[in-house]
């Protein structure tokens, strides 16, 4: 089953010169494996290939999070790019639209909503 990343994760992004980083964290610990499996550097680079020249991925298993470093997305940086969102703040939202594949077993444990109480109930199920 395909779901947008935002169903199982949240993100924050920002600028680092001409690069931008996007941190993506699992909403619940159980989603970290699916994130790590599906959200590879190659998948993310392809998704942003109209803007990024290359993408590095780093893992933070302690925070159930991945960090992506997208090179070139902001041109020469936040002050000189002509783009909207010159500091890459909206890239966090963009990555949450990316659709990834969940196994049947994983899909069966999707919460009914993003409300945190619902999500936790799902964990106990």
């Amino acid at each position: 089953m395909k779901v947008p990343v935002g169903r199982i994760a949240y993100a924050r992004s920002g600028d680092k010169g001409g690069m931008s980083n996007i941190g993506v964290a699992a909403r619940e610990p159980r989603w970290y494996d699916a994130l790590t499996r599906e959200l590879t550097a190659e998948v993310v680079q392809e998704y942003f290939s109209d803007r990024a020249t290359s993408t590095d991925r780093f893992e933070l298993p302690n925070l159930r999070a991945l960090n992506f470093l997208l090179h070139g997305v902001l041109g020469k940086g936040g002050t000189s790019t002509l783009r909207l969102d010159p500091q890459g703040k909206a890239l966090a939202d963009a990555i949450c639209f990316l659709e990834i594949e969940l196994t049947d077993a994983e899909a069966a444990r999707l919460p009914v909503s993003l409300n945190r109480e619902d999500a936790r109930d799902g964990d106990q199920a």
Partner: protein
Amino acid sequence: MKRGVRIGGGLGYWGDDTSAPGRLVREADIDYLVMDFLAEVTMSIMRKQMTRDPEGGYATDIIPILRDCLADAVDRDVRIVCNAGGMNPLGCAQAIRALAAEFGLGDAVVVAAVTGDDLMPRLEELLDRGVELSNTETGAPYSTVAGSLASANAYVGADPVVEALERGANVVVTGRLADPSLTLGALRYEYGWKDDEWDLLAAGTVAGHLIECGAHVTGGNHQAAWQDVPDMGDIGFPVVEVGVDGRIVLGKTPHSGGLVDEQTTIEQLLYEIGDPTAYLSPDVTSDWTTMSVREIGKDLVEITGVTGRPCPATLKVSAAYPDGYSMTSLFLYSAPDAPGRARKAQEILQFRIDRLALDIDEMRWDHIGLGAVHERRTPQTYTGEPCEVVLRFAARSASRAALKRVAVELSTVFHGPPGKTTLSPGRGRATEVLSYWPTLVPRELVLTSVELV
């Protein structure tokens, strides 16, 4: 158990809510108020201001902030550490001293100015000593910007903050001190952490990183669940309580809006990081992958287990150079067929601009309302026809005159489709672009000094 040192983060950026710091001082039982004013190119803007006004060049918001809370800070023994000094820490410190005198606090306030981060007077010397100053991001050699840098400041670490506090300062004003080093300096002074106790220095750095963006860790910009953030209009600012062992507890202004939980904490931890096993700051190489984050109460999150390794041999330098001019213009089109009208307007304006054969380096059109931010990533569910579209034009050129000519041409937009509403009156203005030039300098070549004012 003895309470740890409590540090409030009063500001996320220059221009942030000037009432937040005072509220932290009065209501959050803090020992230190730290404030980060500087973004990547702020220094260049400040340097430009200083050429017009030699007494300026610092973040002037510090004055209304301290007008609100300096007396209360003195009264409660809260020390203030901030990088409001920008290009002119001494001038900033003198303005604070004058404010203290105005309040009759001349004897109670000791202001320290930290200088030495400004490398502009030393560029030739650094080159002579073999420092390359090449662009670390693009690899471009310094020769491509030689003689044209608008500013060059080393990110300096916590040492001068420790020295200033040891010498009795209760207001420490720095230039381009690294954001988390403001917090780490206070902790090193309080706990006597040595400059090679890497795990503790890393913990102090994480504490600083957590509070350096102000309300972005207390429920502001909370992408995970912004709808659930209570009372966002009265959002609290962050407070870290740090123990001598490096244990961090993150909270916020009491009785305020917003929230602090595992997700808001992780969002901020992930902000503007690169390789999480090697977060580089002037003081330490911190490892973001060993810490645990745990909710321990309402709006209280505990962070433990941070580790660190020796600091880098080089300091990052924040430099910028003038890089031509840019201009943007906005045209709002209303229904019916707002998207079609905007498309047509773009077509005719582009035709007219091209016909002039001007020296334009880059042009860009955005159709705001039609997925301009997310572009091809915009989900299908959002692609219905909007009632309005904002057509945005942006251009960059080495020639200000060329952009002025373009602005004249854009005013023919009224000859095009109907339904255009004025968003911004008058012609677009060309403004100077400052581009970022990240580089490195060996740390032993940067010498800071502390002056009591």
